[in-house]
C-alpha cells in the first residue's frame, strides 16, 4: 500500500513563502510526476513528503494515517537523490545493504535481498566496487537498489536523471518505467523536463511558483491545458502563443497552436511568412518562420520538406486545434 495525501500543505523559509497551499491525492501504485521550471518548489514538496523538511502548515497522510510529524525513516518511503548520495567509503554491496542493516535484519536475509536487487539492476558484477569506480548510470542503479531493498510504500525520485548524458537518460527512463510495472509501488518523480513527465507518468502535476497549475494524465494535459502556463510547458517544441490581431479574430487575448497542428505549404495558406531557421531532424523538420502580422511561429513538417532560410512559406493552422486563452491566461 502506498497512497499519499497532502491537505492544505504550505511551506515558508523564514518570511519567503515557497509553497502557498497545496492539496493533492496520490493513489496507491500510481506513477506521479511533479514537473515545473527550476526553482518552483518541486524538490521542497518532495522533501516535505519525505519528512526531510517540515511543512509550515497542513497535513500529510500516508495510507490514510497522519504522518506530518513522523520522522523520515518511520514513513516507510525511499528516496533517490539527484546527486545519488551514495556512501563513498562503502562498496556497492555495503550501500545497498545499509538500510537493511539499520533496520536490524539478519545477515543471511540481508545477503539474499541485496543479491536479488543487484540481479534486477544488473549490478551483480559490481558488488565489490566503490561508488567512485562506477559510471553515472551504474551509480544511479545503485541508488535505486538502495531504495528498493527496503520495500518501501512509495519511491521518491528527485531529478534522478539530470546528471546523465542524453542516451543514458533515455535508457534509464525506460528502466525506471519497467521497474514501476514490475514492483507496482507508488512512485513520485520530480523533474523539470516535460519529456520525462510525458513519457513516464500516469499522472502529471504541473507546478509553477509553488502552486499546482493542473493535474492530469499526460494526454489530458496535452489536449486540454487549463491555462497558458501548462500550454507552454507541455509539448515539444513549445506551443506557439500568439497575441494581437490574429488572436482578436478568434475572440481571445491569446491563441495557441502546437507546431504539429500547423500545415506547411509553398503555395497557399491563410498565413504567409519568411523562414528564419530550419531544423532537420530526419523524421521531422521544424520550420521557424516570421509570419506577417502574427510574429514568430514554429511549425512541424515531414522530414523531407525542402525549404531554406529566407524562403517564403504558407502556414495553415488546424481550426479545431486552436486553443483560446482569456485575459488572465485561463483557457476559454
Amino acid at each position: 500500500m502506498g497512497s499519499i495525501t497532502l491537505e492544505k500543505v504550505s511551506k515558508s523559509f523564514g518570511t519567503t513563502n515557497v509553497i502557498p497551499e497545496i492539496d493533492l491525492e496520490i493513489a496507491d501504485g500510481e506513477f506521479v510526476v511533479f514537473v515545473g521550471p527550476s526553482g518552483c518548489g518541486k524538490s521542497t514538496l518532495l522533501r516535505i513528503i519525505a519528512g526531510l523538511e517540515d511543512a509550515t502548515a497542513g497535513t500529510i497522510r500516508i495510507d490514510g494515517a497522519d504522518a506530518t510529524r513522523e520522522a523520515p525513516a518511520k514513513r516507510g518511503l525511499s528516496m533517490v537523490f539527484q546527486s545519488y548520495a551514495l556512501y563513498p567509503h562503502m562498496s556497492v554491496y555495503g550501500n545497498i545493504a545499509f538500510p537493511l542493516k539499520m533496520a536490524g535484519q539478519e545477515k543471511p536475509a540481508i545477503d539474499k535481498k541485496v543479491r536479488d536487487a543487484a540481479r534486477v539492476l544488473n549490478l551483480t558484477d559490481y558488488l565489490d566496487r566503490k561508488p567512485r569506480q562506477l559510471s553515472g548510470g551504474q551509480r544511479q542503479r545503485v541508488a535505486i537498489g538502495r531504495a528498493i531493498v527496503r520495500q518501501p510504500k512509495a519511491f521518491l525520485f528527485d531529478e534522478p536523471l539530470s546528471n546523465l548524458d542524453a542516451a543514458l537518460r533515455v535508457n534509464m527512463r525506460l528502466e525506471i518505467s519497467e521497474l514501476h510495472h514490475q514492483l507496482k509501488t507508488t512512485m513520485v518523480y520530480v523533474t523539470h523536463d516535460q519529456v520525462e513527465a510525458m513519457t513516464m507518468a500516469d499522472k502529471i502535476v504541473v507546478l509553477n511558483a509553488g502552486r499546482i497549475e493542473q493535474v492530469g494524465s499526460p494526454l489530458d494535459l496535452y489536449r486540454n491545458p487549463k491555462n497558458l502556463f501548462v500550454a507552454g510547458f507541455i509539448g515539444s517544441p513549445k506551443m506557439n502563443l500568439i497575441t494581437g490581431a490574429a488572436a482578436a479574430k478568434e475572440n481571445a487575448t491569446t491563441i495557441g497552436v502546437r507546431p504539429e497542428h500547423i500545415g506547411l505549404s509553398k503555395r497557399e495558406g491563410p498565413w504567409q511568412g519568411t523562414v528564419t531557421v530550419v531544423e532537420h531532424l530526419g523524421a521531422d523538420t521544424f520550420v521557424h518562420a516570421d509570419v506577417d502580422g502574427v510574429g514568430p511561429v514554429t511549425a512541424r513538417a515531414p522530414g523531407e520538406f525542402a525549404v531554406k532560410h529566407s524562403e517564403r512559406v504558407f502556414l495553415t493552422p488546424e481550426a479545431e486545434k486552436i486553443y483560446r486563452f482569456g485575459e488572465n491566461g485561463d483557457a476559454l
Partner: protein
Amino acid sequence: MATLQTRSAARLMMTPAVLMLFVWMIVPLAMTLYFSLLRYNLLMPGMEEWAGTLNYRYFLTDPAFGAALLNTLLLVGGVLLITLVGGTLLALLLDQPFFGQGIVRLLVIAPFFVMPTVSALVWKNMLMHPVYGIFAWIARLFGLQPVDWLSSLPLFSVTMIVAWQWLPFATLILLTALQSLDEEQKEAAEMDGAGPVSRFIHIVLPHLARAMTVVVLIETIFLLSVFAEILVTTNGGPGTESTNITYLVYAQALLQFDVGGASAGGIVAVILANIVAIFLIRLIGKNLEA
C-alpha cells in the same frame, strides 16, 4: 608542463631552490653526526678527541633515556588522543547553527595563537598553582585538598597544557572536513533509518578519516619536539618524570655542557622520529589516497 622542453626548463629553474634546501638540511645533520662521534665537552675546550660510538652507548644506556623515550611516546599519544576526541566533539558542536557562532569559533581558535611559553606560564601560575591557582580554589570550594599538579602529576599536567594548545588546530581541520560532508548523504542515511549515533559512526567518521590522518601526522611532527612547555613548568622533573627526548638532549648539552653526548642524543631523536613516521604512514597513510 607537457612538453620535454618545458619539463627540463622547469627542472633547471627549480635546481637552485632544491640545492639550497638540501644544503640547509645536510650541513647541520653532518655536523651533528660528526660531533656525536667526538668527546666534546664545553668545560674542556680544545680537548676534543675521537670517541667512536662511546657517546651513543653512554646516551642509550642512561636510565634517563628509557624514561624519556616512554615519556615522549606518552606525551604524543596522550595529546593526540585528547585533541582527536575533543576536536571531533567540538567540531560537531560548532557545526550546529547557533547564535554567536562566529565569535565562538574565533574564541575556540584563540589558544593556537598563544605562544607556548606564555600558555605554559598561565597554566602554571594561574590554573595549576597549588596555592593561588584556579584548580586549587575550586578544590577548596568543595572542601578538598588542592592538588599540586606540576609536582604530583607532572607528565599529565604537561600533556594537558600541550593538548589545550593543539585542540584548536584539530577542531579547525575537523570542522572544515565536517562542513564538506554532502548534506544529501546525511539525509539519505536518515531516510535509510540511521539514527544520530549510527549516522556518526557510518557516515561522519569515515568521512573524517582523512582529516584525522592529517591531524595525527602534523601534530606528531610537532609533539615529538615539545620543549618550551616542559622548560617553563617542570624542568623535566621531578627526577625525569616529565623529561622527553628533546628535553634530555637539551639537558645533556646545556646543563652538562656535553656537546658530543647531546649530538648523539639528537641523532637518536632523528632516528626515532623517522621510525614513528614510517609506522604512522604504514598505519594510516592509505587514508590519504584519493
